[in-house]
């Protein structure tokens, strides 16, 4: 007895254990879907986060001399100061990986002497160059650098100073006058100084490398004076590509063309529309060059920053105001600092309020007061992930979390005006050969492409699939239906890679060479069906009995094949007589339509084939399961077969047909291989049937393997996948919901 009981006990335990396991297994399906959803969101989320800036360290330094400039290494481990005595002092920011506290003073860890005479000014010349001006009006160019060494076993950062133009001072001005403004830029062959002297001359000094500045600092020097109609200069900037100089002259900016070595010409004058309110005088208060040097940013006393770059117009290239940023409502913009590699900039107003912006995406990323007033020196770390401020011998280090400023909801879905483009456009261009390329991520062209491909596919598939479904479900004899239905459904099993391959390599060239035939087919196929039907109608009775109407699909097969053959045979003839022998030439030259070999027509047909079985199968089920007593009733009341079909059957089955089309649309939207292989994958905005497109799915397949993990590009591709996911989720859930309702309706009938 006890043994039996025990066995019952074990069996019960097993039973409930199994129950739990199976329940867990069942729920894991839901869990999987939620996991996919959440994971996609998790990857996308950082893209839409705005910047965060948090303090890392703050400490005072001991320094007798006045500090003129500061700097930072790439990993934010060392900071340096340049003081009036011509010394560079280095300070370790993270000694022994400890966070520095407020009251801690940091000792000087390293010192290097540049000049014996007193330094009066340090000019930041971009790309890690500093110009040192001493009291004797000598100019030195230095570039503080950092090397990582493992010689002692542990990691060490060793600072050193490199002199790209030699350790000797550079005679920038022939007459040795003092500069009020000086700007500098160089590449491997040339270095250019633009300066404004105390005696009011605007000069250009060009150093031409004897060999290559990257390893040999020797040069020849050339002096020029630039004619200037005024003697007021407030700021001077040279673009890093040595092509232009921007001279601020009061409330206007003069742009000089430097590309011609012998002749510096005034190229344009930028006069911002400052007069917006009469009470306050409006002035340009700050000027800076955006990374890349094509855009200039102008800050005004009204608290606005405007971005300007050259745009090709009908009257040649002109500087245009592209966009403005509202930095402050009450205060003037005092300083603009730009990042070295990205199109971001930081602003300061009088009260020390800082703002962080990204130009292209018009993102307003951060605002706030990190200090009570404008810092004496402000440095953005080379990787744009840290800020170093220096005020009253006090360093403050901040970490910046701002990895994807170029992506905003607006930039993804609205027109964006990129540098060098004539107007704002929707562009998807994620990579390019050049280094200073800016990724252009507009989801509009690829979403449009998805829609276009799906639309052409549905235009092709819906009529065929629905008519086939109607006939199979309602008119066909059961014997034939048993064979026809699985045959058409077999198409669903065909791998789409094969459909895509046939579309791209077999169908596309056929369509290209036989365009008239394809056009002819669309007209001749329905007509030939009518003619056959009429011919059958007029057959003698005995023959009709032998070939019943239920055989219509079989009768039509040879007819349709024959018509297709005829159309193709007629194609070259039509081409000769109607289109001057070459229809492609005719379309491109006479009609002015661009023609791609792999175009929307090819995709429409190929993807149509992929979608037909989905729609056919579900619509057929819906029509077939319309209760028989409904049709019998209608027929008994004297309606014809066709009337019954239209008024009773289709009406009852319409939700099912709707859900079939939804499912088909869902499939067409997400299809990858066919579009990938049957289109040219160019992201264009054009409904033309003779042009291709790029879809979300194909875009992911093409670009995902090459995108860098964690980059904006990678996350935007995840966003594209998420959009697809949501798209199909809505379609499928809607279709399923409608189908459930229909099932309930049928069972109640």
């Amino acid at each position, binding site marked *: 007895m006890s043994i039996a009981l025990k066995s019952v006990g074990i*069996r019960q335990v*097993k*039973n409930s254990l199994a*129950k739990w*396991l*199976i329940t867990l297994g*069942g*729920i894991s399906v*839901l869990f*999987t*879907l939620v996991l996919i959803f959440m*994971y*996609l969101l998790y990857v996308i989320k950082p893209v839409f986060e705005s910047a965060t800036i948090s303090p890392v360290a703050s400490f005072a330094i001991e320094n007798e001399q006045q500090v003129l400039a500061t700097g930072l290494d790439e990993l934010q481990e060392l900071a340096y100061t340049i003081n009036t005595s011509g010394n560079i002092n280095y300070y370790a920011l993270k000694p022994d990986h400890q966070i520095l506290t407020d009251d801690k003073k940091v000792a000087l860890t390293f010192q290097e002497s540049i000049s014996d005479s007193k330094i009066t000014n340090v000019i930041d010349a971009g790309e890690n160059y500093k110009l040192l001006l001493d009291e004797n009006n000598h100019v030195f160019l230095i570039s503080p650098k950092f090397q990582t060494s493992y010689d002692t076993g542990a990691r060490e950062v060793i600072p050193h100073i490199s002199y790209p133009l030699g350790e000797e001072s550079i005679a920038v001005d022939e007459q040795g006058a003092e500069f009020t403004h000086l700007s500098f830029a160089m590449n491997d062959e040339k270095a250019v100084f633009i300066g404004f002297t105390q005696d009011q001359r605007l000069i250009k000094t060009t150093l031409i490398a004897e060999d290559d500045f990257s390893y040999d600092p020797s040069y020849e020097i050339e002096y020029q004076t630039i004619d200037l109609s005024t003697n007021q200069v407030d700021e001077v900037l040279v673009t890093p590509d040595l092509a232009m100089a921007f001279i601020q002259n009061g409330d206007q900016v003069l742009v000089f063309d430097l590309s011609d070595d012998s002749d510096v010409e005034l190229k344009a004058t930028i006069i911002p529309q400052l007069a917006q309110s009469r009470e306050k005088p409006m002035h340009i208060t700050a000027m800076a060059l955006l990374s890349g040097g094509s855009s200039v940013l102008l800050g005004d006393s009204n608290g606005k920053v405007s971005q300007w770059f050259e745009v090709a117009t009908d009257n040649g290239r002109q500087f245009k105001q592209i966009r403005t940023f509202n930095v402050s409502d009450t205060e003037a913009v005092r300083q603009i600092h730009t990042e070295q590699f990205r199109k971001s900039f930081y602003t300061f107003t009088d009260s020390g309020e800082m703002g962080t912006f990204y130009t292209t995406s018009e993102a307003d990323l951060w605002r706030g007061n990190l200090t009570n007033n404008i810092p004496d020196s402000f440095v953005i770390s080379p990787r744009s992930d840290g800020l170093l401020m220096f005020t009253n011998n006090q360093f403050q280090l901040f970490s910046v979390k701002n990895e994807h400023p170029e992506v905003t909801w607006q930039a993804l879905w609205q027109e964006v005006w990129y540098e060098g483009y004539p107007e704002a456009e929707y562009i998807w261009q994620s990579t390019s050969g050049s280094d200073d390329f800016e990724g252009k991520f507009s989801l509009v062209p690829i979403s449009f492409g998805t829609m276009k491909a799906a639309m052409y596919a549905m235009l092709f598939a819906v009529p*065929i699939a629905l*008519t*086939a479904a109607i006939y199979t479900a309602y*008119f*066909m004899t059961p014997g034939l239906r048993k064979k026809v239905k*699985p*045959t058409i459904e077999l198409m669903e*099993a*065909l791998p*789409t*890679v*094969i459909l*895509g*391959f*046939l579309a791209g*390599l*077999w169908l596309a060239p056929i369509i290209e*060479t036989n365009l008239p035939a394809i056009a002819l087919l669309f007209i001749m196929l*329905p007509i030939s*069906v*009518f003619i056959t*039907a009429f011919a059958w109608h007029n057959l003698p009775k005995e023959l009709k009995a032998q070939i019943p109407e239920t055989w*219509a*699909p079989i009768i039509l097969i040879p007819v*349709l094949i024959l018509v297709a053959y005829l159309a193709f045979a007629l194609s*070259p*003839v039509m081409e000769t007589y109607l289109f001057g022998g*070459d229809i492609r030439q005719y379309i491109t030259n006479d009609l002015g339509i661009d023609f791609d070999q792999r175009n929307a027509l090819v995709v429409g047909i190929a993807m149509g*084939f992929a979608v037909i079985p989905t729609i056919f199968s579900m619509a057929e089920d819906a029509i077939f399961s319309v209760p028989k007593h409904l049709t019998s009733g209608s027929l008994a009341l004297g309606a014809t077969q*066709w009337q019954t079909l239209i008024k009773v059957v289709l009406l009852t089955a319409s939700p099912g047909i709707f859900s079939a089309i939804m499912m088909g649309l*869902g499939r067409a*939207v*997400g299809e*990858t*291989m066919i579009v990938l*292989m049957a289109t040219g994958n160019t992201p264009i905005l054009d409904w033309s049937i003779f042009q291709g497109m790029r879809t979300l*799915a194909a875009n992911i*397949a093409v670009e*995902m*393997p090459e995108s860098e*993990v964690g980059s904006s590009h990678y996350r935007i*591709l*995840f966003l594209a*996948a998420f959009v*697809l996911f949501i798209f199909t*989720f809505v379609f*499928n859930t809607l279709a399923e919901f409608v189908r459930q309702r229909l099932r309930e309706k049928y069972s109640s009938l």
Partner: protein
Amino acid sequence: MNKWFKSGSPWIWLSAGGVSLSLISVLGLLWLIASRGLSYFWPAQVHQFELMDNQGNASTVIGEIYDRESIPSQQLVHLNLDLDPSEETVERLLIKTGNRELVSLDFRWILVPEITQQSTPEKLVVVERRTNGNFYGFIEAVIQDGKSVSIDTLPSLLTRVLELQDKIETLQKVEIGAINYQLERLRLRERKHKLQETLTLDRAQDIANEVAILQAKYQVLEKRLLALRDETARDQIKLRAMDDQIVTVSFADILKVTNNNQMNSFEKLMMFFSQIAVFVSDDPREANTEGGVFPAIFGTVLMVLLMTVIVSPMGVIAAIYLHEYAGNNALTKLLRIAVINLAGVPSIVYGVFGLGFFVYMVGGSLDQIFYPETLPSPTFGTPGVMWSAITLAILTLPVVIVSTEEGLSRIPAAMRHGSLALGATKVETLWRIILPIASPAIMTGIILAIARAAGEVAPLMLVGVVKMAPNLPLDGNFPFLHLDRKFMHLGFHIYDVGFQSPNVEAARPLVYATALLLVTIIISLNMTAVSIRNKLREKYRMLEH
């Protein structure tokens, strides 16, 4: 006429036209793939064309007729041909001329009106080579060890070389491959000890000794390999091409010499079958455009098997839960929506998810924990066959669920009640009664899942497939099954060869053949599944009565 229109008959015919069109497209598609795919294996006639162009230059073209098309004669006006003006179209032929080392393009179009003479000389041979594609020409001489010998010795010389080549391949792939693999493992072992700071002098010495032994072995094998290679290059064959150039081809380079024009139908048939055998069992050559697809078949099968192992239990358990345990509540409804949506989510989304979640997140963590010695080169943190199998398992999960549930729902309630009434617990009923009866339905689901997975390409492009895998994921080196390796896949092979290969025209027949293979596999899997399902339905219908 009007009455006829009112009767709706024309519309009925029009809808019948929809059925006809669908049938034509399905069957036409299958026929297209089958005919193009099979013709790849059929030994083609080699033609010799004598051409005369409009300037009176005569030339000879030798090759296989690859394609023919007619074009409007107006498109050729600029060529100033003297064509029959009454003809609106001109026929032209695409000839595969091979001989890639002599001409830059191994295909050329010739216009039919330019042909003055066309023949199929019996002496023309097709030489299939390891590099530079086919050679079409006449045998001038066979040279054995520097001496010219009779052409009749060709088959025996060729057999000898092919045997040598087999030896070389085993030596290279199996023996030398194993040594390289062991050397790499030793390097990793050393690195691991270094990282864990457990590299004692003894250990270092052991490893160094083993490396030395392996390298000595390698030296021996390499010598043997070089000797064999020299052996294969002993004999040559002299061939005369269409422009009377003489080309010497080493036997080391030759795979097959055939005399297509002399073959009778039976010989052609035999060759047809042997070509198919070579296609499914050989490795690809020349950037995948020639040779066989064995690694792709192997990769597809292995990946699908792995997937089956994962998806079957998951799918069956979920289906059992939905049908046997789930109550009629909101959770069940949600679950059903989840199943429908899992089936409807685009496959590329699974690829993106698999890449981000499995490869980078899970795989990256596995590497950190278990394979720190190979970092920064990833082991599981990179696309591979295991991640592909798991990703496709999620993708095909709904297929198994839906099919299994359908099977479960067809089992008459009486069988359950009988079992329960006799005192069996629910799980015993499931295990002993329900599952055995439903097993054909489960089988159907699994077969359909396999068919779906075998044809899916888009997600695999992200999670593990490559155009050319140097090693199969299964080989003779411990642990034999290398789940971290990338693999080749038939579907991707089609995409890659058809669209990424440098010589698309030459590769096209191979793509058709691959497509035929894939379609055959998938269609037969589907038909099997459908027929099992139909039989099952019949059986249940009988059980009910």
